[in-house]
């Protein structure tokens, strides 16, 4: 069985963090190395500077609502975000995240269980989400095998390449 585990320091975000907040439309035509410097700028202009590789995001409801722009999960991944665990996700963001190889998990109660700076440990194949700092364990629905397969390949295209036999 595919096992995907992530451990990281938590950035706490609220409900309805939309794709225009994650990657504002006015920067969308910029190449990723520049676009990523603006990630989450409307709510925290210093986010891109302060985030450390391996950090994780814990968010409220409807994370990533709005546009189908794949730059939203990609910019988060590019600045080093290792996973997003939220109360719920907007559909396209969730799918895009899996397709580009950014682990995401729907976990009820996660907002209340974490404060900024806590250490989160998540196992995407069992759905176990731990707040290491506070000693709390939550149980989410694990990702289905297909999504785990895509994630462990590193994304949908990497999986496709495998299938093409290259």
């Amino acid at each position, binding site marked *: 069985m595919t096992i995907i585990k992530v451990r990281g320091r938590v950035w706490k975000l609220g409900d*309805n963090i939309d794709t225009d907040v994650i990657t504002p439309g006015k920067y969308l*035509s910029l190449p990723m190395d520049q676009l990523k410097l603006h990630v989450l700028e409307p709510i925290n202009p210093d986010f891109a500077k302060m985030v450390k590789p391996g950090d994780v995001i814990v968010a409220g409801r409807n994370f990533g609502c709005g546009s189908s*722009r*794949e730059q939203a999960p990609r910019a988060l991944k590019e600045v080093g975000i290792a996973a997003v665990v939220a109360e719920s996700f*907007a*559909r396209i963001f969730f799918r895009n995240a899996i*397709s580009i190889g950014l682990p995401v998990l729907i976990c009820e109660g996660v907002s209340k269980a974490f404060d900024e700076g806590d250490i989160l440990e998540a196992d995407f194949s069992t759905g176990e989400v731990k707040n290491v700092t506070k000693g709390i364990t939550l149980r989410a629905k694990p990702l289905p095998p*297909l999504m785990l397969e895509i994630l462990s390949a590193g994304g949908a295209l990497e999986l496709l390449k495998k299938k093409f036999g290259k």
Partner: protein
Amino acid sequence: MPMTLAEKILARASGNKEVAAGDYVTAKIDVAMAHEGAAWVIDELMKAGIDRVWDPERIVILFDHWAPAPTELTAEMHKKIREFVKRHKIKHFYDIKAGICHQVMPEMGHVRPGELIVGTDSHTTTYGAFGAGGTGIGTTDMAVVFATGELWFRVPESIKFRIKGTLPKYVTSKDVILKIAGEYGTEVAQYKSVEFEGPTISNMSIASRMTLSNMAMEIGAKFALIAPDDKTISYVKSRTTKPFTPLYPDPDAVYEKVYELDVSDLEPQVAFPHSIGNVKPISEAEGIKIDQAFLGSCTNGRLEDLAAAAEILKDRKVHPDVRMIVIPASREVYLEAVRAGIIETLLKAGAVVCNPTCGPCMGTHLGLLAAGERCISSSNRNFKGRMGSSKAEIYLASPYVVAASAVKGEITDPRKLMEGKA
């Protein structure tokens, strides 16, 4: 087992006799649409070393987000896509000439009932107005589609909105979908397929239905379907000679929830910043000063929307402190509006009319907002920073409300303006 319309569409596309909500299927894509997102699709294909497309006749590409290119970067993006289109002999390419994807797709006959259509744009749900399974995907998934013509889907649960009652004068399908977003929240359809039905829907024009299916994306919908009727079939047949097989939900299909709405007494609705779910009736919005009024977008830039604004603006003037920006959704809409005298009315009133494009809706060009400014907009999103400054405010409403507000310089009830009470 009886099936919903979403289940029927995904069963057909995946070659299964039956599918049920929760199943994972691999489906064949009937049509794949990409706007400027194609540039990133091309990047993904190149990274993966794939230089082929599965079927150049089933791919539609056009430019609408940055059309014509407002910057050198976007000009390079367009150039890259044009070269790809030539190299792979993509049959349906409209460059900057046709307009916004979701208007152009049905106009050019690429949307057919029963088919499965993916687009690199979240508002691809618009095609549900024709009984087609339209849904937005990202550019990596689209690269998979371009290469293979197939994509995995989770068969969604379905919910139904049954709508009855005659919409009052100056109240539109935009007000209906805003009411739904306000009443039930922006997650009521998360991961789900929505079906709209009922006498109000039957009486709606194709354009008004498209507004509903378009904005259902904002309540989370994966598909936003309206079962085809005579209006749908005659529209589609006037646009394409390609054969198609309409699909219908089974009468005893299982819905997770059915919501019933009577819109007989519905007021114009306004979504306040910065969420589409932050909806209030116009009576609670009247008097809010505005700097810009935007009429356009894939949500409300069609002929009936422009005609609605012209009805309000005929023999009236846009307030001197307001910039009113009008963007017809497509070249065809533009041309018809010229012929009908609508553009002349809007210009005489003091509106600025731009070429068919997404324009300021997503903050790329043609009328961005400065800090502290307010815009009343017929578009689909009022997120912070969506139309420029993060310190600007966007209010969403129908074309009637946008036009009436442009006249008064503040958010205005079109019913009162037209009755001489505002």
